[in-house]
C-alpha cells in the first residue's frame, strides 16, 4: 500500500467504504429484524409501520420454551397469583393463557430440537472433516490409481440437488429403520459434506510442502505421527474453514430434516416454522426460536474468524 494517496485514490477509497457499509446494512437488516422481533411484545410485532423503539421483554422466549394451549376465558385471580412471574408477564402481554391445560407448566419441544440440531451438526461436521482430511491426505501425498476419476466421482455426488433423491432416501431409511434417528441425519449430512470437505482439504494439504513430513520421517517419526504432529497443525486453517462450512450446511439443512424426522430426532429448522401452525401466528415466538438458532453458528464463526480469513485467502499469498 502506497504511503501517499492521490486525491482520486482517496475518493475511490471513500466510495468503497460507503459501498461496504451499504452492503453490510443490507446483510444485517434481516438479522436486526429477527433480533428485535424476538424481544418485542406480541402486539408490536406486526404493526405497520414497524415499531423501532419499544421496551424489550423476554416473554417470546418464555412462550418458546413452554407448551401452552389457548383457553376460552381468562385465568382466575387465584390462578394468576399462583403462576410464576414469567407466566404473569406473558399474561400481562394480553395472552389469555397461563399454562398448559389446567395442569403443570410443560416445557416445549424447542430445547430438545435445539439439542438434536447440535448433536447432528457437530457429529456430522467432525465426521465429514475428519474423513475428508484423511482422504484428502491420501490423494495429495500418494499416487492413487485413477486419482482424477475418483476425485471426480466424489465431486459428482454434489451434481444433483440433494432433494431429488429425497424419496428413495426416505424409503431406504424407512426400510433400515434410520428414519427419525440422530444417526440417520448424521450419516446423511456427513455424506453431503464429505465431497466438499475432501476437495477443500485436498487444496489445503497440497499447499503444505511435502518436505515437512519428509523431515519428520527422517527425524524418526512414523507417517501417522508425522500426519498428526505436522500435517494437522499446518492444516489447522483449512480444517477450521472446512468445519465452518460443513457445520453451517448441516445446521441449516431443512428439507431432509423435515422428511426424515418428525419427533425424536427432529432438528430445529423444521420445528420453528411448525410453530406458525394453528391459530394466529405468534411471530415473536418464531423470531425468538430463530434468534437462538442463529447463535451457535455466529459464535462458532466468531471463534474461528482468524482461521477463516486466512482460509479464504489461502494459496493466494506466497509465504
Amino acid at each position, binding site marked *: 500500500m502506497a504511503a501517499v494517496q492521490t486525491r482520486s485514490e482517496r475518493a475511490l477509497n471513500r466510495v468503497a467504504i460507503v459501498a461496504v457499509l451499504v452492503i453490510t446494512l443490507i446483510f444485517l437488516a434481516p438479522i436486526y429484524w429477527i433480533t428485535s422481533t424476538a424481544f418485542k411484545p406480541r402486539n408490536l410485532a406486526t404493526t405497520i409501520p414497524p415499531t423501532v423503539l419499544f421496551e424489550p421483554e423476554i416473554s417470546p422466549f418464555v412462550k418458546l420454551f413452554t407448551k401452552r394451549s389457548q383457553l376460552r376465558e381468562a385465568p382466575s385471580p387465584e390462578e394468576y397469583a399462583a403462576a410464576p412471574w414469567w407466566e404473569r408477564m406473558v399474561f400481562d402481554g394480553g395472552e389469555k393463557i397461563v399454562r398448559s391445560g389446567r395442569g403443570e407448566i410443560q416445557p416445549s419441544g424447542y430445547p430438545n430440537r435445539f439439542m438434536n440440531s447440535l448433536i447432528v451438526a457437530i457429529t456430522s461436521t467432525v465426521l465429514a472433516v475428519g474423513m475428508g482430511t484423511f482422504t484428502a491426505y491420501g490423494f495429495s501425498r500418494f499416487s492413487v490409481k485413477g486419482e482424477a476419476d475418483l476425485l471426480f466421482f466424489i465431486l459428482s455426488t454434489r451434481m444433483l440437488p440433494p432433494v431429488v433423491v429425497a424419496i428413495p432416501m426416505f424409503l431406504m431409511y424407512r426400510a433400515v429403520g434410520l428414519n427419525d434417528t440422530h444417526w440417520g441425519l448424521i450419516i446423511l449430512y456427513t455424506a453431503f459434506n464429505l465431497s466438499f470437505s475432501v476437495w477443500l482439504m485436498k487444496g489445503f494439504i497440497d499447499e503444505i510442502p511435502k518436505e515437512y513430513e*519428509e*523431515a*519428520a*520421517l*527422517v*527425524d*524418526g517419526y*512414523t507417517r501417522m505421527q508425522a500426519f498428526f504432529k505436522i500435517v494437522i497443525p*499446518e492444516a489447522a486453517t483449512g480444517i477450521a474453514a472446512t468445519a465452518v462450512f460443513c457445520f453451517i450446511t448441516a445446521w441449516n439443512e431443512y428439507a431432509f430434516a423435515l422428511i426424515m424426522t418428525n419427533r425424536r430426532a427432529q432438528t430445529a429448522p423444521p420445528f420453528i416454522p411448525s410453530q406458525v401452525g394453528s391459530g394466529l401466528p405468534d411471530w415473536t415466538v418464531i423470531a425468538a426460536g430463530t434468534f437462538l438458532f442463529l447463535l451457535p453458528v455466529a459464535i462458532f464463526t466468531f471463534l474461528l474468524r482468524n482461521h477463516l480469513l486466512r482460509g479464504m485467502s489461502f494459496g493466494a499469498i506466497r*509465504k
Partner: protein
Amino acid sequence: MTQIELRGIQKYFGAVQVIKDLNLAILDNEFIVLLGQSGCGKTTTLRAVAGLETIDEGDILIDGQPVQHIKASDRDIAMVFQSFSLYPHMTVYENIAFPLRATRMSRNDVDTSVREIADVLRITGLLGRKPSALSGGDMQRVAIGRALVRRPKAMLMDEPIGALDAKLREEMRAEIKRLHIKQGSTTIYVTHDQVEAMSLADRIVIMHEGILQQIGSPQEVYARPANMFVAQFVGSPVMNMAQATVSETGGHASVQVSGGARGFEFPAALANCLSDAKAENGKLTLGVRPEGVLISREAREGFMPVVAHIIEPLGSHDIVDLKVGDQMIRARTKSGFVPGPGEAVWARIDPAQAHFFNTATGSSLGIRL
C-alpha cells in the same frame, strides 16, 4: 563410525531411468559431495539413502547392513532440505527438540542437547522464535541444528544453501565446513554448484544423466577430469575445448585447432602418448583451462600470434578471449596484462595443463605431458 555403501543402484521413474548402476563407497567421517546438473539423479540418490525414495535394484548398506527395506524413521540418518523444512508452527527450540522427542529421551536430556547444539551453532538467542521470524542464514543454522542434535549416523544435505544469497552462501559454506570438522559425521551433500563442491568435499562424485562420471578429491577432478563432461562442469570459467589435429614438424608436435592457421607447439612425446592411447587423429579434442593458456606481449619461441577479442576484467585477474582459427580460446591473465581488445599477443598452451579427449566417446585419453 558410519560407512555407507551403494551397490548397483537402479532407479526408474516410470520408463525413465534416473539412476543407472550406481556404485559408491563412503568412508567414515567423509564429506562426500554429489555434484551434477538438475535432473542428474543426485537428489534421488540422496533421498534413496534417506529412505524417502525406494530403489528398483541394488543395495544400500549402512555399516554393512542393507537398509533399503528399512523405513526412513529407523535408519538413524538426518537430512537438511533445500527449503530448510522448519516446522512453521513450532519455535526454534521445538524444531530442534523434535527429533529427540521421537526417542524416549527425558525432558532434561532433551533440553541439554538442544542448548548444546544451539550453542555450537550460535543460535541460543533465537530459541524462542518462530521460523518465520528468522533470516535465511539462521533458518539454515536451525535446520542443521535439528539434523545434528540427534547425533545421527550420517548427515544428508540437499542443496542446503542453494536458497541463500551469494554472500550468505559463502559464509554458510565456511560454517558447514567448520561444523563438519568439529562434529565429524559422515556426510553426503548434494549440489549443482561446483564451487560449493570443491570447497567442501573430501571427495566429489560427479553425476550426469543418472550415471556416475567420476569420483575423486577436488584436486583430482579438477586436474584429471575423466571425461569432457567433468572437464567442462568443474572449474570456472569452463575449460576450453577444441577439435584438434596433431602433426609433427621440426622435432616437436604441433596441435592445430580446427580452422587455425598454425598449430600450438607441444613436446614430441605427444605423438607416442597418442599412439599408446590408441587415439585416432581427427577424432581428438583438446582441452585446456584458461590458466593453461600462456600469453606473452612480445613474440617468443613456441608462441603463436593471436588477436585478443574480448577482455573481462574480474579484478584479481582478467579473462581474455583469443581468436584461434574459428574458435575462441579463453585465457586467464594478470589484470590489465592485455591493454585492450584488438591487441595482437602471442599465446601457447602449457603442455602440462593440456587434456586430450576422444571426441566420439568424450572420455579422457589420460595423456600427461
